[in-house]
């Protein structure tokens, strides 16, 4: 077992050791970030092959691929934020509820008379503000109130959804602000705006996590909070920032969801917590903190969305989908582990 521990430890290196201390040829290549995700890439490719074989050109079609990406966009933005929180040693069960609350609050503004004159950008800012504020509250509860993250965000989950129901009076709020829909329904060089946003968030997230002091501190805080504290990092402030960041992502996801469905609703974001955590963890981010990969998360999200797309194209029953989904998750993880271990050695 300790051998494996060592392998895992090696796998945890953020960058492939380059240069003289590591002339390991192919294995060195495999240990690169692309290599670390080999398993995921293989799983995704297999899935796509499955799609092509079973659904032919209905699957391998630009429109269908854009559909998959559009579906991935909303949960993808949340998952990128979740990667930060989990890497920093936390967890957030309230993401779906925050998405719901943000969507409701933002659309309440938009559906009220006053807002008819205001620009649609107000919706965007409201959602971001509400999301960020929720994240801030979560972070403060966890870092300064010292409530276990699981419980604190479970409480937020209940509270935020309840609040969303109260504000919306449990109705679906339909937005008709014209500029809003127009902006988000547009495409940039054939790529839908939602997908562009997701890509931008992913890239920004990657840079933030891997190229900045903030990201480096996130790894430290998640890996060993006591050591991080003694190294002079303000662990609590950093924790608050992580949850706030995730809250902002949820706010953005809410905007995207409002744009997609033209509605704000207290039922939005149902079970996002599980979907996002699953994508993050299957991507290779350690639930216990200290190790995280945005690329892995993006792959994780794509795997799950492609999966449901392929299922639907094949007209599979929901029950059969569930069974197959379980099996595929396990296979993907096993594959990823085997390949990662080989590349780490």
């Amino acid at each position, binding site marked *: 077992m*300790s*051998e494996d521990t*060592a*392998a895992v*430890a*090696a796998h*945890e*290196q*953020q*960058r492939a*050791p*380059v240069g003289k*201390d*590591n002339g390991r040829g192919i294995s060195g290549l495999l240990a690169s970030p692309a290599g670390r995700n080999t398993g995921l890439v293989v799983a995704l490719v297999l899935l796509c092959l499955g799609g092509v074989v079973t659904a032919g050109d209905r699957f391998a079609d630009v429109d269908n691929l854009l559909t998959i990406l559009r579906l991935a966009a909303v949960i993808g933005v949340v998952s990128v934020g979740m990667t930060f929180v989990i890497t920093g040693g936390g967890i957030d069960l309230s993401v779906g509820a925050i998405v719901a609350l943000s969507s409701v609050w933002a659309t309440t503004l938009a559906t009220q008379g006053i807002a008819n004159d205001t620009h649609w950008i107000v919706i965007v800012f409201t959602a971001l503000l509400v999301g960020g504020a929720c994240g801030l509250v979560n972070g403060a509860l966890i870092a300064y109130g010292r409530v276990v993250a699981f419980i604190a965000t479970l409480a937020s989950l209940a509270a935020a959804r309840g609040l969303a129901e109260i504000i919306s009076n449990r109705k679906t709020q339909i937005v008709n602000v014209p500029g809003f829909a127009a902006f988000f329904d547009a495409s940039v060089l054939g790529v839908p705006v939602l997908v562009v946003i997701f890509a931008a968030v992913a890239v920004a997230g990657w*840079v933030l996590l891997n*190229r*900045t*002091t*903030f990201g*480096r*501190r996130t*790894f*430290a805080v998640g*890996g*060993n909070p*006591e*050591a*991080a*504290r*003694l*190294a*002079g*990092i*303000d662990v609590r402030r950093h924790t608050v920032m992580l949850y706030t960041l995730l809250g902002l992502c949820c706010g953005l996801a809410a905007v995207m969801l409002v744009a997609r469905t033209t509605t704000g609703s207290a039922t939005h974001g149902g079970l996002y917590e599980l979907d996002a955590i699953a994508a993050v963890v299957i991507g290779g981010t350690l639930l216990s903190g*200290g*190790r995280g990969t945005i690329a892995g998360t993006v792959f994780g999200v794509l795997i799950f969305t492609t999966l449901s797309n392929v299922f639907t194209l094949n007209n599979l029953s929901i029950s059969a989908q569930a069974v197959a989904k379980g099996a595929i998750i396990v296979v993907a993880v096993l594959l990823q582990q085997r390949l990662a271990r080989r590349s*780490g*050695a």
Partner: protein
Amino acid sequence: MTAPAAALLSVRGLVKRFPGVTALQGVDFEVRAGEVHCLLGQNGAGKSTLIKVLSGAHRPDEGEIYWRGELVSFGNPTAAMRSGVAAIYQELDLVAGLSVADNVFLGHELSTMGFSQRAEARRRTRALLDLLGHPEISPDRDVGQLSVAHQQVVSMARALSLDGQLLIMDEPSAVLDPDEVRVLFGVIRELTARGVAVVYISHRLAEIREIGDRVTVLKDGRTVATGLSAREVKTSELIALMTGRVLDNVFPDRKPVAPDAPEVLVVRGLGDGDRFRDVDFTVRSGEVVGLAGLVGSGRSEILETVYGARKAADGTVEVNGRALRRGSVGAAVRAGMGLCPEERKSQGLLLDQAVYRNITVSSLSSFARFGFLDDRAERARSGRLTEALDVRPAGVDRVVRGLSGGNQQKVVLARWLLRECRVLLLDEPTRGVDVGARSEIYELIRELADSGVAVVVVSSDIEEVLGLADRVLVLREGRVVHDGPADEIDESRVLDLVMEGHAA
């Protein structure tokens, strides 16, 4: 082929590879019943790895192990324990949250039909702790709340409870004070008298002379000498075998601190309302102050409080004349303070991250422009430091977890060297560090001091405190009982001071 009948354990051509490192590349040695066999070697020489192979925790890649003349393979720790091999690991592997008694009997619990015999376990634990000279440890205490030293005692009790034929101890004395080491030696003598063999690992040559019978020296995972007589072999010869070079003077020369040197660190009336109070001391620029005291006298707490990692109840800490905010590590670090904590694994290191990231974690902003890090500069600066400190194996991208204990310690030191602190607090800086590296670290501390840094050193090794410090503070039960220049006090006087009221 069979091993000589006299050997209890005999090892031939042992090889153990880790991803990227070959920790053992051909180790041979044998242990006779009733002897204390010492293993010597620099940090990273492969001693702990060897122990883990012998106790079934690692499977060797090549080589043979003979137990009582028979070829064996200990596939797992249980198999080794059954045969009579008991080990105390360097990284105290106890379970925090379980009681002392539970830890002692973990894996070989006393039970009837699955139900724990708690009274019996407690009774036997009590007896073992008494034997080890620690009647004050309660078998019901949570191990996680014990000091490191007491945890070490529990580990020993655990090994003794196995009632083995071969007892392997990986640096048991690293966290013990001289008094406790004496008790430990008593226990070892008793065991060997009963025919139990002991494999003893330590970086302190004096101990090896005192307790050892024969010595095996490892270097870079190979046996370079075996079967040397522990009492007769010359120190210089041992050091030469281990390091491949000759070292003479361990402690560097002191330079007298200029009388007008500014008082960089001023601690006044510090107390935490519990473990210590009324602690006053000052450290001048260029001065090394040593804190001596028994384990549990509160030295670590004082350092941590000065550093802001614990909140002070009374008193002030000033750096360069400016009082620090209480309970704020950030304030202390910004004021130019650095701490090498006592427990490097749980307090000091990001074990699963690369060496360079552990080194730069406290100085990130100096590598950043608008928050974006210059990875290459980080590696380069860290590389220079690890080279200077001779961290082995080299390579700033290595994961810290895979480094040997001593090398991990150097990584923590490198962190604060990089930051160029004005005040450096060192809690047991040479714990688990080999002689060679030790003198390098002493050298380094001295250099730092000479460059104007104020240094505070806590060590359980009184010789080290006296040899290194300009001024010595002696602590007893949370109070400073002596404060004076190091050359006006000797080891026995310090011992008297710390023990006063203790022995009686």
